[in-house]
Every structure is written in C-alpha cells, then in structure tokens.
C-alpha cells in the first residue's frame, strides 16, 4: 500500500512539489503580520538600504543645473511666503491668547535622503537614509516641502521603507480646505489620487486644495495632499468622483522629512474596540 502511494507520488512528483510550495506560499500570505516575519523583514530593509545607499552615491549630474534653477526660484517664493506666514503667525498667537487656546504647531521634522525607489507595480515605496537610530518608527508620516508623501512601513537601525501615496493600500483622511468637505484619499492606479466618499451635495471644485484632516489618527492635520483636478457627478451614485493631482512629485523625490509622531495607541485601541 505504502509502495503504491510512493509510486503515485513519484509519478506526479512535479505536481506534488507544486502543491507543497503553493501551500507554503499561501501559509505565508496568511501569516503576514507575525512578529518573526516582521523581524526578518527589518533585517532585509537594512541590507537593501545599505546596497541602495552604495549605489546612490553616484549623483545625477545631468539634473543638477535645472534643479539649481528650480531651487532658486522656490527659495524666492518660499522666502516671500515665510514673511507672510510670520505675520499670520503673530496674528494667530495674539488671537489664540485672546481665546485662551493652546498652541498646536510644534511640529518637529527629521530630514532624510531618498536612497532607493521600489516600483513594484502597485506597491510603490521609497527607502530613506534614516532608521530606528534616528527615532524613526513604523506609521510615522513622511512629507516634503510640497506636502504629504506617505508613511513609514518598515524600519531597520539605519534605514526605513516608506509607502508613498501611489500605493494600493494607502488611505488618508482628507479634507477640502475651502469647503471643509471630508473624504478618504486613495490611489486607484495612474498619476492621480481620488477623494472618495464625497457626497453629491458637498461643494468641491477644480483647483480646491485637499489637506489632511483632523480625523486622521496617523497624520497631523493641515498637511497638503493635492489639488482637485476634476469633480464630477455620476448619475445613480450618492457620491461624486473627485480626482486630485498630488502635491508631491514622486518621480523627482530626493529629500523627505519624517514627522516623529506615532498614532495615539489609546485612541486606536478605543476605536478598534468600538468597531468590534
């Protein structure tokens, strides 16, 4: 009997092997969030970051001239904006004092170089040159001077991997700055983002700025996400279709800043227990 089973298995050994390996793969898919797997991934982030860092020392000289010009223009624009904001901040402090409100603008940033980009179909990530040694932890927001870039998803001692907005699993609680309409920013492929769950009755127009909402447990409120390029009513649907041009240009991303804030675990636990 055993010999017969062995003969059958041997005759179909290719299929038996395929079945075993597929079962193993499915088992791995099912155990994605295990601590041991996260630890192994952390090691690979370190190894990969080191390799990408070594390759990244070769600068792209062809872009330097145009980049310098763009930076000088940006510098001028930002200097003007800083002056205006300084005035507004002083006014804001005065008004807050009058109203007795607390100051909420003490954001700290950790600068990082983008040392690698991974274009894995719908899983676009960047590897950056700071890690746990610099205080980086998973879920911290990643921004540029233009706006929200993504969030940290894996860390090693010296490097981190950040998921960018152009990622299948990215969801950000967003708000139209002008009309205060709330929605969920997501990516559905292509070069645009979408703002979901915007009811037909809400006022959204092309050119509106979309920022992170205070409802988000991950991102500080008020970070620029993108600009509405299209707001369209769909017959038979309760919601409108809203497309955004992201504020950050991911093709030319070289420097980012990590905001060292992690979600409030008590808030997450409360929300999770309530949803259960």
């Amino acid at each position, binding site marked *: 009997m055993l010999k017969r089973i062995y003969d059958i298995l041997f005759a179909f*050994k*290719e299929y038996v*092997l*395929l079945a075993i*390996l*597929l079962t*193993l*793969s*499915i*088992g*791995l*898919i*099912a*155990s*994605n969030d295990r601590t041991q*797997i*996260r630890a*192994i*991934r*952390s090691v*690979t*982030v370190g190894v*990969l970051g080191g*390799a*990408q860092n*070594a*390759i990244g020392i070769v600068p792209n000289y062809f872009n330097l001239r145009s980049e310098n010009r763009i930076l000088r223009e940006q510098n001028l624009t930002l200097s003007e904006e800083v002056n205006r904001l300084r005035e507004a901040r002083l006014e804001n402090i005065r008004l807050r004092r009058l109203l007795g409100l607390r100051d909420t603008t003490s954001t700290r940033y950790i600068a990082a170089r983008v040392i*690698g*980009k*991974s*274009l*894995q*179909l*719908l*899983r*676009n*990530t960047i*590897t950056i040159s700071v890690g746990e040694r610099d205080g980086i932890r*998973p879920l911290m927001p990643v921004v540029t001077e233009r706006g929200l870039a993504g969030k940290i*998803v*894996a*860390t090693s001692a010296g490097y981190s*991997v950040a*998921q960018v907005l*152009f*990622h*299948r*699993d990215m969801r950000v609680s967003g708000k139209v700055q002008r009309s205060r309409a709330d929605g969920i920013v*997501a990516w*559905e*492929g*292509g070069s645009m983002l979408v703002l*979901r769950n915007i009811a037909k009755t809400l006022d959204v127009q092309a050119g509106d700025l979309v920022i992170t909402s205070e409802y988000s447990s991950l991102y500080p409120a008020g970070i620029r996400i993108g600009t509405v390029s299209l707001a369209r009513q769909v017959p038979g649907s309760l919601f409108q279709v809203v497309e955004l041009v992201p504020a950050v240009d991911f093709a030319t991303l070289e420097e980012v800043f990590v905001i060292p804030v992690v979600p409030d675990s008590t808030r997450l636990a409360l929300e999770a227990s309530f949803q259960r």
Partner: protein
Amino acid sequence: MRSLLVDIALTLVVLLIHTTIIPFVAIGDVVPDLPLLLVITIALLRGQIPGTFAGFGIGLAMDFLSGGDGVLGLSALTKTVAGFLAGYFYNENKTFQTLGGSQFLVIVLLAGAVHNVLYFVIFLQGSGFSWIWILLRYGLPALLYTAAAGLVPMFWIGRKYA
C-alpha cells in the same frame, strides 16, 4: 551541486541589480521583472522541478526584499507557478536552442502573463481597483518590458551557442 551554486550566485546578482539599478531604467512606473526572467531561464536550463523550486526561492526573496510592504508569499506563489509552467518547455537536448531562440520570448510572454494575472487577481482582493484596468495599465507594459529585457540573454545565448 555546482549548478546549484551557480544558480544561487546568479540569483543574488539578479536580485541586487533588480533592487538597486533597475529603478533607474524604469519607463514611467514600469520596470522589467528580472527575477521572473531568471526563474524561466532556470526552468528551461535545468527542468521543471528546479524551475519550480527556483520560482519559490526567488519569489520568497523578493517578498522579503519588499521590506515591510506588500504581501509576503505572493511573489513566491506567482513565481512558483511561472517556474512550473516554464518547466513544461524544458528539453534536455535543446536547452540552448530554446534559450537562444524566439521560443524563449514566447515562453516569457506566456509564463509572465499567467504570473501577472495571478499576481493582480490575488493582490487586488478587497481593494477598489478594477483588476482588468490594472492589468492593462501595469501588467501588460511590465510583461512587454520583461520580454524586451529577455532579448538580451536570448541574443547572447543564441550567438554563443549557435
């Protein structure tokens, strides 16, 4: 034993190139899948069982190299299937003719198409994406780019072993 060591060394080199240099040759957001080419090459060079093993091993390595991102086991699964399929075309007496001829491209397109369809169908589960649109937007260009990258080993082997 020697061939196994050669395959492992080749795998390490390809994974290093894939994660460091390949992003520089991206066309838009599409890159060639060099590890898939390697899996198919191993299957055509060594047979269906080594090809299936190679698919699993290389896919698993890719899953880990994606850092904390992505679905661990998904590349292992899809590349195992690609290695298994490519192994059907293994012919011990015509190894280099297959690798150095147009047959190679046909096999890359076939195994790559199955690989990409399987990948997206599983990967997009539970998301709002239309997987047919995503296949046309990402899967097809990635497949064509991978096949184009396959021309390099094809011509090299074709010329060397003609």
